[in-house]
């Protein structure tokens, strides 16, 4: 188990290095931040001086080397605009994004799993067809549009919910739903097919034969095993959630990392974008590692040492 974790951590480091190099190169090829930082009436000397200070005249591999050297000392640089350490700027806003992603995840699972289970148990019935169709609607709607529609209906027309911002759970409701709706279809269908497969297994028939109640059979024995493929997908979709959160954060003025990244990309605040991309990658990879470890708990047949139990 320990060896497995160490191996995964090594992969993680390689992934982070790769991401940092790629994002660095793309950022620096995408245009000059100097014209955006200085006021419109800046003189040519001022522009040249700032370029020098930001090392923009160095060849790109030298700039990257300088970045890596500093990063290894824990210094991911300063924001071009505020001159504050970027790590602090990002950590300040990370909880908001994670809150949004988790809320969306919890909401979608809370809706999807029961739908999937019911659809599997009542397979072929109208309940099955309808729930799968409704879930598909959610998948097809772009969440940008959905977010704006929610605001129009629930805030402007009905006046039930505040339009934007973060602080109360009422303000979390619309953005989390807008983000989570597209996942409901995926999770529901997956739960349904996993359940169908599990319900036809021998051990389920055994459990029924033993006289256990249907709820015990379905809820405990069947569902627990059906969750395993679902857990994999949740891990993969967490990345989607972090990315999708960017759009939802813009629509609902949610003060998370996504909004910070978008604004920093537009302003060409390289260090912020660089660090944010790397930190999100770390979160994503960590989540996946934890999910893989979760398997071991869910399915005792899985062993990390390459030996079967």
């Amino acid at each position, binding site marked *: 188990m320990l060896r497995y974790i160490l191996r995964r951590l090594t992969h993680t480091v390689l992934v982070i290095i790769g991401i940092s190099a790629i994002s660095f190169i793309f950022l620096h090829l995408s245009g000059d931040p100097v014209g955006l930082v200085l006021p419109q009436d800046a003189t040519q000397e001022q522009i040249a001086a700032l370029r020098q200070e930001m090392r923009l005249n160095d060849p790109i591999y030298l700039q990257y080397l300088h970045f890596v050297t500093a990063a290894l000392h824990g210094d991911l640089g300063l924001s071009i605009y505020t001159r504050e350490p970027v790590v602090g700027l990002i950590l300040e*806003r990370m909880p908001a994004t994670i809150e949004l992603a988790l809320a969306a995840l919890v909401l979608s699972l809370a809706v999807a799993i029961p739908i999937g289970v019911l659809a599997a148990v009542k397979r072929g019935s109208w309940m099955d067809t309808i729930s799968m169709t409704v879930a598909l609607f959610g998948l097809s709607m772009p969440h940008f549009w959905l977010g704006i529609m929610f605001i129009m209906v629930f805030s402007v027309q009905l006046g039930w919910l505040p339009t934007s911002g973060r602080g109360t759970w009422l303000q979390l409701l619309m953005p989390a739903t807008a983000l989570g709706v597209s996942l409901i279809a995926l999770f529901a269908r997956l739960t349904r097919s996993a359940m169908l497969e599990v319900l036809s297994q021998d051990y389920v028939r055994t459990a029924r034969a033993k006289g256990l109640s249907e709820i015990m059979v379905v809820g405990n024995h069947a569902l627990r095993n059906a969750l395993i493929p679902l857990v994999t997908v949740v891990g993969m979709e967490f990345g989607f959630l972090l990315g999708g959160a960017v759009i939802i954060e813009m629509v609902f003025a949610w003060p998370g990392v996504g909004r910070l990244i978008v604004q920093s990309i537009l302003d060409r605040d390289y260090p912020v974008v660089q660090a944010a991309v790397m930190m999100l990658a770390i979160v994503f990879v960590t989540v996946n590692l934890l999910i893989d470890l979760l398997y071991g708990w869910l399915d005792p047949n899985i062993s990390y040492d390459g030996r079967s139990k």
Partner: protein
Amino acid sequence: MSFFSRSIVAALTALSIVGGVSSASSDTTTLVVVQSGEPVGLDAMQNNLQHSLNVAFNIQDRLFEPLEDGGVAPGLAESWEFTSDTILVVKLKPGLKFHNGEQVNAEAVRYSMERLLDPAIASPHAGRMSQIDKVRTIDDLTIEFTTKAPFAPILHLMSYYLPIVPPVATAATEKEAFNRAPIGAGPYKIESWERGGDVVLTAFDGYWAGRPPYDKVIFRTIPEESARVAALLTGEVDIIEGVSVRSQKTIEDSGKGTLTDSMGVMPYVGLNTLNGPFTDERVRQAVNFGVNRALIKKALFNDRGMLAAGPISPRTFGADLTLEPYPYDVDKAKALLAEAGYPDGFDTTLSYPTNMTQIQEQAQAIAADLETIGVRAKLQPLDRAVMWEKYQAREHQMYIYWWDDNPEPDRYMYSLFHSNSRDYYYNNKATDASLDKGRSTLDRDERAKIYASIDRALYEEAPWLYLYIIPETYAVGPKADYVGRRDGFLFVRFAQPRTN
């Protein structure tokens, strides 16, 4: 605990904060203002982005108050005079204090000026203010500024870019910390700033113009326009910035908001007078005759704003108001092109940054008109930063950019047309000489004449394809009264609760 579990705990904690920061509704003592981008810092000296200065200028006052016509009124200063062409003596109002109790005296002004030019602070305004050579205190309330050469825009620039800060507290604070919680002598002091969220300001009793009408002002950020408009329509907020033409009708029809004009935006098409077909003045005039700017303004902007004749906005002093915008005359345009040696027209490119408002429609309309006279302009949309790079590399032939309709003519005429500032696409010694004269003549009427002659000269020389000036719009909810300013800044002390 791993990062993951820690974040779960953090998320659950956040979720459990019920009824925390609620979006304040507008009672008579709180004003909620929404911007489209968030402030990056709140110390006016360290920031240049409009969204940051909009907040900072309410916290930190300057010696003078800027007026809509480019002049200034007393601010922290009571009176001032030019004792010579290069020496300005300013007298402060007596008895004023900063938010933290320090005195607003000559020493504070001297300290503030030096801080502005201090390389350690790296103020984006240092360049603009670098004409000031020396500052010295004469007595407790009197300061003397010396400029390197006679410099007329000095008062206008000082009314924005020299915020006065308390020496003791400022020197004792790290500049990043000061950028998050600045101190000044403005009408509002900072209560809190949740990064990414609200900036909360509270009224300052000791303000020289008296306590402002609102007890509390909240600056909020909502980047998505429809969400901003929704917030106004639900009554959650009082003033919103960044209202495009599309939303203006929605707001007016709803009856829940009124529109007010703010900063004028002056888009223009720069022409490469140094290289290519536009080196010929006749070609430049031809394109000015060949674009129906009046129709574009009507179609794309609901006919708001005004047409531009020459480079100086008609609202700015020094504009030659006898000039008429180039009329739309296809035949004249074609004749000029033929005369210049292009009877069949020519091919060129029209570049523009994609972040400008309604730029795609404008560019397409302009290109379509140009096509009619034979100038086949290929559209080249570019990202803002790439556009800037190519601009400096002198790669454009025709490029669309904009400037704000500033009441001080030197502000952009010098920046855009003087070869010291930019010589990428235009370089004319005669214009340089006139611009130098315009900025060093202290008498306003004399200056007006000089700029009027520059306006006329450039009108004929046509280094640009002149377009129009379109004001940006703010929308104001039913509970507040606010009139937008030409400089586009949100001085919220002028906002009042509506009493009907």
